[in-house]
């Protein structure tokens, strides 16, 4: 692999990476769970209508019951301060750190992380981010037209793509090819495109694999040896892993089960996920902005009668993903889910539209990275599935399997 590597003192001790404190109240975890979906929500009192922040268990004005509601994200910066000294290990690594108070258009005044370009009196948009410790945090950015990435404080909350090294686990599929193309176009230093066997002579002439800053590598997530060898061939730093591997086949449980395909779906989606994560997570953990992005089917949420094996494998993958996210909290590595419904590809020829274009999945992957969004739903089908599942999972499962 020939990417330009940053210069590092070979004798320097490995730098320990810290994350912000993780301990939070239950109400705060409820906010984090919503922030992870990219929503800007605050609690509003069901009795007096007062909107409150930070999260609480009861309305501070009338003791009424609070409910989560999407809120306008605008506001005005009231004041700022720069923290230069802290006993917190994470913030000590990132001094100086700017914070400020913002009068939210939604009502409350909030203590926020402040973008370098903002000053008291400025109009601002407040983003509900997930910090490196996995908790919601408000970050005020200029209302328009600033290069957010120029602020090192902002970069702590997102995953830059430009100049980074990324691996795409299965680049042979339509999704995989689109992701390789997108990462390359968005300025990744090197995109390593994993190709499961059997290899084809035609791969050598493939336009995507011949792009500048793209290299192919043999990688089959069903084979632990192959994953280990791929890691050894990549060798050096790796910032981003995008897991595009999946095995979509039709088949039921009692009717037309297709055990060979069912087993393969589990080998790819579930066991493949574990093989990939166990090999690459330690490599990502050594990086300042490591991220593991997993593309999974929204049928992971509910099962799917005509693709029972695939949906079950994706459900297993979803479960493993949650465990990996928890394991990675202490390292600051972002674990991101990108849910999709049926894709416009060879695997979904039997499905009528609407289907999601692979290029749209690819741009959503990059969008999730650049915005530090933990959970993304691409396309109407996935968004609808997630909304219905969040609203009434029992009803959704029933409806999806009628």
């Amino acid at each position: 692999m020939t990417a330009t590597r940053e210069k590092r003192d070979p004798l320097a001790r490995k730098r320990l990476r810290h994350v912000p404190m993780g301990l939070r109240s239950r109400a705060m975890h409820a906010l984090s769970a919503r922030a992870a979906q990219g929503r800007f929500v605050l609690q509003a009192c069901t009795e007096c209508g007062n909107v409150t922040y930070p999260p609480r268990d009861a309305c501070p004005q009338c003791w009424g019951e609070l409910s989560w509601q999407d809120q306008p994200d605008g506001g005005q910066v009231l004041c700022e301060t720069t923290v230069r000294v802290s006993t917190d290990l994470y913030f000590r690594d990132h001094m100086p750190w700017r914070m400020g108070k913002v009068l939210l258009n939604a009502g409350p005044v909030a203590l926020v992380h402040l973008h370098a370009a903002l000053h008291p009196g400025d109009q601002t948009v407040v983003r509900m981010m997930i910090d490196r410790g996995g908790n919601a945090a408000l970050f005020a950015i200029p209302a328009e037209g600033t290069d957010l990435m120029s602020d090192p404080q902002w970069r702590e909350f997102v995953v830059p793509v430009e100049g980074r090294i990324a691996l795409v686990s299965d680049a042979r599929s339509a999704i995989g090819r689109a992701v390789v193309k997108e990462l390359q176009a968005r300025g990744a230093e090197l995109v390593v495109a994993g190709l499961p066997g059997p290899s084809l002579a035609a791969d050598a002439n493939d336009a995507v694999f011949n792009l500048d800053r793209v290299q192919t590598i043999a990688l089959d997530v069903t084979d632990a040896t192959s994953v280990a060898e791929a890691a050894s061939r990549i060798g050096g730093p790796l910032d981003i892993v995008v897991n595009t591997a999946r095995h979509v086949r039709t088949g039921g449980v009692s009717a037309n089960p297709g055990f060979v395909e069912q087993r393969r779906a589990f080998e790819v989606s579930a066991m493949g996920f574990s093989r990939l994560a166990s090999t690459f997570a330690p490599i990502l953990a050594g990086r300042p902005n490591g991220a593991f992005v997993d593309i999974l089917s929204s049928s992971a949420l509910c099962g799917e009668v005509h693709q029972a094996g695939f949906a079950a494998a994706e459900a297993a993958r979803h479960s493993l993903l949650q465990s990996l996210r928890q394991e990675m909290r202490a390292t600051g590595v972002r674990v991101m889910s990108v849910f999709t419904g049926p894709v416009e590809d060879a695997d979904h020829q039997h499905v009528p539209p609407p289907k999601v274009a692979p290029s749209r999945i690819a741009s959503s992957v990059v969008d999730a990275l650049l915005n530090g969004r933990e959970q993304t739903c691409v396309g109407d089908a996935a968004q609808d599935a997630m909304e219905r599942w969040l609203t009434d999972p029992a009803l959704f499962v029933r409806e999806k399997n009628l």
Partner: protein
Amino acid sequence: MTAAQSLVADLATAIATGSVEIVDLTNVLSPDFPVIVLPSEFGQCEPFRMETVSRYDGSGPAWYWNNISMNEHTGTHFDAPAHWITGKDVPNGTVDAVLPRDFVHPVVVIDIAAEAAQDEDFIVTRPFLEAWERANGPIPPRHWIFLRSDWSKRVGTLSYLNLRDDGAHSPGPDADAMRFLVHDRDCVGLGVETVGTDAGMCSHFDEPFPAHSILHGNGRFGLQCLTNLDRLPTFGAVIVAMPLKIKGGSGSPLRVAAMIPRS
């Protein structure tokens, strides 16, 4: 000592002293060894997979062992008659029922390396075999027929499976050649270096899959993914090929060895 006793004792001595050389004709069974790729409407062959249970570690401090999985037709492997529909009713057609006396048979090695190098789709025909016999002598009955194509030298490269836009390209026999070998020469089976006993393009033949269809329909065997065939003499070597005793199995990965007399 009876004649049979001294024969076996002499063989053991000859092997020990090297006057009978044992040559391994088996490829290494590894996860990256290619398996046959069928058109996408059919079920596919699983490659070899290995996961370590323990390696002198917490899961087994003093021992090393792996769980393995594969298709019956992965790596260097044996095809039993039941592998093909034509052989479904053949007596003793599954690997567990292969008679012990069929574990050991002499071999005739037909060299098609030059032809296969010239033409990746080289077809072994009956006229080719008859011309070969005129040059080399008749093929004796109850022998393995091995086709030395030097295809094993391609292992580790894309040109082994040799998949192109229109499918796989590799040499193999046509139906007349197979009928000649089975009915007129009473062969034990066909052994090849390629991933299948049939040619890469065999599904497009007038009689598709002739080797599988005719061999197995007549109770004969197949050996695939062999290597080191360039070390065998044309006549005079004996093959030891013992498939695993898989209950009702259609084939099996196995170790294949040749006994070669050295002068």
